[in-house]
């Protein structure tokens, strides 16, 4: 492979950090969800890279990546349903205003 392993890991780390920043700083709940999707993808890149570079014969990395994609699908479905339900009830999707757990 022509590309050093470290590059891949650095790109994945950068993507993860972008996602983390999105999850931490977006006001809108859907924006938070987008950030989480980015983080999941960063993790997936790592899994596949480790498969390709460290254990190219075993398929574990790919399998795990597929599981993560499955989880992401479930997360998106449930998360969006919650957001829609919250929007209906509270007429907002701003995370700061969804503080029913407050105290």
């Amino acid at each position, binding site marked *: 492979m022509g590309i050093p392993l470290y590059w891949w890991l650095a790109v994945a780390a950068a993507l993860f950090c972008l996602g983390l920043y999105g*999850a*931490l*700083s977006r006001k809108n709940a859907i924006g*938070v969800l987008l950030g989480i999707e980015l983080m999941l993808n960063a993790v997936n890149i790592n899994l596949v890279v480790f498969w390709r570079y460290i254990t190219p014969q075993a398929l574990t990395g790919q399998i795990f990546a597929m599981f993560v994609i499955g989880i992401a699908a479930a997360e998106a479905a449930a998360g969006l349903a919650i957001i829609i339900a919250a929007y209906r009830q509270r007429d907002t999707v701003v*995370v700061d205003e*969804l*503080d029913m757990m*407050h*105290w």
Partner: protein
Amino acid sequence: MGFFFNLTPFVPLFPLLAFAVIILFTHRNNRLSSNIAIGGITLSTVIAWGIVAATIAGGERTRTEGWQLSIPWLPAGTSVLDIGLAVDGLSAAMLFMVPFVCLMIFIYSQGYMNLGKANQDPRYARFFAYMSLFAAGMLGLVVARDLLFAFISWEVMGLCSYLLIGFWSFRNRNTEDHIDEAQVDRAKKAGLKAFITTGIGDVLLLAGIALLYSYTGTLTFRELFQPETLAALQQQTLLGMPAVTVIALLIFGGAVGKSAQFPLHVWLPDAMEGPTPVSALIHAATMVAAGVYLVARTMPLFIAGFDYTSAPALYWVAIIGAITVLLGATIGLAQDDIKRVLAYSTISQLGYRMMGLGLGGVVVGIVHLLTHAFFKALLFLGAGSVIHGMEHGHHAMSHHAPGDLAESREDESFNANDMKQMGGLRHRMPRTVWPYLFGTLALVGLAPFAGFWSKDEILGEAFVGWQHTLAIDHHLLVWLAGTVGVFLTALYMGRQLALVFWGRPRHQAAAQAHESPNSRTVPLMILAGFALVGGFANAPFLGSPLHHFMADIHQASHLVNVAATEFNFVVAGMSTILAVTGLLAGWLLYRNYQAGQVEPFKRYLGPVFTVLERKYYIDEFYQLAIVQPVVWLADQVFNFDYRWVIDPFVNLVAAIGRWAADISGVFDSVAIDTFLVEGVARAFNAAGRWLRYTQTGRVQNYLLVVVVTVLMLVGLYLYL
């Protein structure tokens, strides 16, 4: 015959399937649901008995090595976590009892929950679903091959106990049942109490399992009990003890919670807030048996390198058992609630089993577990029958009471569980009284009833062990506690019989009570048969067959005491005399007890009786020593936050800011200054908001804190 072994997975699977089917599909059809539950447990029973037969036929090899099956659970990198099922002599012995007693209880419940009647429980189908899951949990534990699967089943049981004990916390108040807020509240609290109290034990057990896995890398019983593994575990030290002892004590902690040993016994008496079949299930076949079974199963860990000082695991088992025997039996003397007496009796009898295990006697403990399961299920179902009879009497009374008793119709103090309001029921309930009497004699331990053989085996083993050394050791302790326990047991059971079935009715309801239907009395009779003959399964004059059946399993580790005890006439004679004396004393004292009188025991014991009546104030002690401090601490933290430090500080800061603003306003009222003042105020305001950030209720704040914390932890890990 061997083919039955391959059906082992179905033993826990059928009740589990029944649970799933009822919850998902049939919960609207009550009759179908309960029939599915009963069908599931019946199939389990059939297979389980087939397995028992196969184990008997299979000879020594089958009993020692058994049959096993392993399923890869989660392949993670290099290691694979397996779960599996296994059957050996010990499991087979349990498999004989558990599904059958469950079956009896299920059949009984169908009548108890008033199937098809007007006052049928509104959550009838759900009840059977929970019961099935409960049975599945216990059966899973029995056939577990490793601690992982055992723990899963263990937790399933914990969940079910919570759901079932608190079953009536959702009771629909529109039905005809005379149910009040207080009872609903009690049921709720009892469920929570059981869950939390056993949860304490579960945490210990989980810690023990985790330790075990970190030391050995396996959780399979058979691999754990290899002599090399045990020796290696003995070499390691942890907290000044061999690691194996620490692990054994942690596992015992789990058993203390589940099997209601002192000091975690407090949940068991409250557990009778659930429907009576649940009490029977918990006290006989499942919940409390689980702890005993787990200790028996992991006995090699307890025995490895046993001595009194550096590796005292077994010693503690015996001590806790002895304390529990005396504690349960003495409290049982002073209770008025018929089920509560039985509950404390269970605690006391559990103590016997633990004592037996504490002597290293796996077999004696399990034999007592088996016999006790039959007669305690019998007693509880009998008590349920009595209570139902009383309720019926109360119901009938309000419809056609004779004129002179009209005022008692609005009798608010009526309590169907109160023994002091019963009396003379042997005439009203002739088909309940005989099984109940059988159960009592078995519990008290009179030959030839089941309890006699199993209890005297424990005492005999202790006595023989003591004679061997003549030292003041746990053998002596067990023997003394056990013998005193026999007398106390006889005393409270004598009192109960006299109060419930003899004497004259002390409440109109008791006079009007009538017999329960067949669905309830037939299981009683079947169980009574077992209470009568069950003990012969391990009678010494038959050569202690169960002994040979189970003893082989732990022989591989060469550590466990597996020799069958000789029948000892001194021990047997002594306990028989004490038992008869106790029964007679209880009966004589309470035979002529009249409503409203001071109890005989209270007369003789005075303040001691009050202590017993209040259960040694243990609940109050817990309230004082644990619950209140925690609440107090929470209050203090709250106060710290809102009353004393943070909020006042914020307010103070704001006040200072305002004051400063005022001063500058007075000092220099020119508009330019307001800019600065406002800036200061805003800064303080921001500071105030900052200080409150810890309590924002906003997910993203918390998330940020999490990230920062993780970052700091990583930093610590890297540079320290």
